[in-house]
């Protein structure tokens, strides 16, 4: 029965060909997933799926696959209900040392409307516009530091009363000093990934993903050089009658066309420096929204351009400078306010005018 055997061998050949093809496809797929690092199993994720435990370069220690594979460290995560418009959501990832040292390393994240109260908002701004943070590249509305970072979600994510929603991440350790989460690049990855997840969960994600394409700027305050005449922050006019026993250090952050920040630290307690003052000039779109509602729409007084409020311990002015709405902001602790030279209002006016001059726009405040 030659015909029958031929049919059988043809069928067998077809079958073996099919098996062979199947193996080839599987091998190809396996190779592909291996090469692109998209193996689909065994991935722990945190913060509503925004952060994954990974292996390799540029992974914050808390999320590094290799950091918790020893017996001594244990990774855990917590998260609230997913972000929704107008509702606060929090999450965190922690590495805990089990060997009894109580060592705890954590990243805490929050997606929430910026604080409503003026005092709370000013404290919040002083934290997240700190000079140790650098603006994200490509005009993205955020700042990244190694210990904390902030990103402002698009207008579509604003609360019903028009306040912006911000995504923040912060490193926390058992010591009171701020804790590094990793390099600027690692923190930027965490921030932008969480911002994308939060915007999608809230139904206000733009078509373009939040992505930093250009290189990141270095994030650390420059405390190396002082200005001529002993002004703080290298800003002419930001002057205080301090003597050598007053422990205030200024750190200059970004000095750019769309963002300028400077923090003043009270270092009387070296182990626990306190943020004593912040000066900021902001015109980057969406970052200006962080100041929404801090002042009513009135003029601060005669000689001031734009709108705002100028008091003893804080000043806020929104005026058009070089064609863009620019926010000038100053917040002082009580000691600095009392030692402003000649007085807090004129110090704010002089500093704002110096920055306006640098930006090439006419004075925004009354001259002294």
């Amino acid at each position, binding site marked *: 029965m030659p015909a029958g055997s031929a049919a059988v061998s043809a069928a067998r*050949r077809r079958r073996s060909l099919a098996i*062979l093809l199947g193996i080839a496809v599987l091998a190809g797929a396996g190779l592909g997933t291996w090469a692109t690092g998209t193996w689909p199993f065994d991935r722990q994720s945190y913060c509503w799926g925004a952060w994954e435990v990974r292996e390799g370069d540029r992974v914050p220690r808390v999320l590094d696959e290799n950091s918790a594979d020893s017996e001594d460290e244990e990774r855990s995560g917590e998260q609230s209900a997913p972000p929704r418009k107008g509702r606060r959501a929090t999450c965190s990832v922690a590495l805990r040392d089990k060997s009894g040292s109580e060592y705890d390393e954590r990243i805490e994240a929050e997606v929430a409307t910026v604080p409503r109260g003026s005092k709370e908002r000013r404290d919040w701004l002083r934290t997240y516009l700190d000079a140790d943070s650098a603006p994200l590249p490509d005009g993205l509305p955020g700042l990244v530091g190694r210990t904390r970072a902030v990103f402002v979600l698009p207008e579509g994510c604003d609360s019903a009363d028009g306040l912006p929603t911000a995504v923040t991440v912060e490193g926390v350790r058992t010591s009171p000093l701020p804790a590094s989460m990793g390099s600027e690049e690692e923190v930027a990855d965490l921030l932008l990934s969480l911002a994308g997840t939060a915007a999608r969960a809230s139904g206000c994600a733009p078509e373009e993903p939040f992505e930093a394409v250009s290189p990141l700027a270095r994030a650390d305050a420059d405390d190396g050089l002082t200005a001529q005449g002993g002004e703080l922050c290298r800003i002419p006019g930001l002057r205080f009658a301090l003597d050598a026993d007053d422990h205030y250090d200024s750190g200059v952050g970004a000095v750019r066309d769309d963002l300028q920040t400077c923090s003043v630290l009270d270092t009387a307690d070296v182990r626990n420096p306190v943020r004593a003052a912040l000066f900021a000039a902001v015109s980057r779109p969406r970052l200006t929204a962080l100041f929404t509602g801090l002042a009513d729409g009135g003029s601060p007084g005669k000689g001031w351009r734009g709108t705002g409020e100028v008091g003893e311990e804080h000043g806020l002015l929104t005026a058009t400078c070089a064609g863009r709405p620019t926010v000038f902001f100053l917040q002082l602790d009580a000691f600095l306010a009392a030692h402003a030279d000649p007085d807090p209002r004129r110090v704010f006016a002089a500093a704002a005018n110096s920055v306006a001059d640098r930006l090439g726009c006419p004075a925004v405040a009354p001259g002294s």
Partner: protein
Amino acid sequence: MSGEQHREKDQMSEEKQGSAQGARSGPQPAPDTERPAPRQDSVPDAAPSAESEAAAPGSAAEPAPESPAAAEPRPAPRPSGWLRRLVRGRSGAAVIGAVVGALLAAGGLAWQAGELPFTSRDRCWGSLSGDTVDRLFSEGEIRTRELSLRSAGRSAAYRTECRLQRWKDDELKWEISVRVQQLAQFDGGGARAWTRQFLSPVMVPLGGDLPGMVSAGRAWLALPESCVGGRRDDPPTVVSLSSGRLGSSDNDDPAERRRYRAAMADAVVELANGVLAEKKCRGRYPEPGELARVVDRQQPGAYPKDRLCGLKGVRAPSWLTGKDDYARAMRTTGDVSGLAHSCEYGRDFELDGVRLTTIEDPRLASFVIPLGYSGNPRFHGDGFGSVFGDMSVYVATCQTGPVAFLVQREDSLVREHDPTVALLPDYVSAEAKRVGCGTVRVTGPEQPK
């Protein structure tokens, strides 16, 4: 003959359309186009030394893959008898499976390692695309030599280099060199050479937020601190690009110069991105923005006598505005929004030019700061400065950080009017105001005790 003359006159001016060069016959050669060939015997001077330097031991120099496809064995046109027998039959399937598997694995490995054949590898650390190379060179054979990138940027003592050469009829026709180096502090000669080449008034900002500048013959771009590391006051590590000798890229046709400059701008961004990728740094620089107009010579009379380079309160020297028959000229950076800008005046800029430069970028300024306190006589006031050989340097602190002001002169004739001393205070005051530093008062000069 005239080509050889040009080649040897390295000191000739970069801008040629001015009246000083008017006497020279004929149009200047386009960048790397119909440049007359140097005589055969003049070539070995330049070429082999470059080659041997580039191929120094220990370097990762590799010959450029001129035609990778040629190295591949051609498949046999038709299976021979033994092969056909092997493929047929029961074991045939296993053989085919093994071959397919091996090919898949090899292909996968090659792809992982980025070593796929049949795709032309980009030049200079895999960064310069073939398209851009075509825009930088006219026809001919392009040869590339490169040193390892690993040394670059670690310390000012090391730099690395890649050279592209166009050869035709066994003669070197054009050369472009790419360098990656950290600018060195405490190095007067180095500062002179680098600023002369890369901060001349013909350089315009690359546009966008790119920390670099470009002309039709030179381009540079600073690598981000996040990639190269270092302290805040360390000078930047820059990728620089030189096409031909200084000034050789001049062309009478402004459209041609603009095109070549655009190619230089694209090239320096590609090179910097290649270095970032090779160093496994994150981020890529975007394409250059719109470039300012090409800088041309102007008549010194374009500004009033007490507004040298358009700066209020800076007086032009009498010989510049005098009525004698010297052919005088001036040129200023068209776009002052960049990291630095300058203005130059003289007859032939490379021979007797005086250049006034402001370096606004704090990192770039940091590379000349030590010169501001090392020379004499000294200047004081709100900042500090000194005369350092044939240049003076003044450093003031502005909101952005240190800003450096330079007055440099090319000629060695000591006139009554030494611009490095006489012009510095007024130049600093005028420029400080213009760049937003406010009032900066300069006193001096004082001889050190």
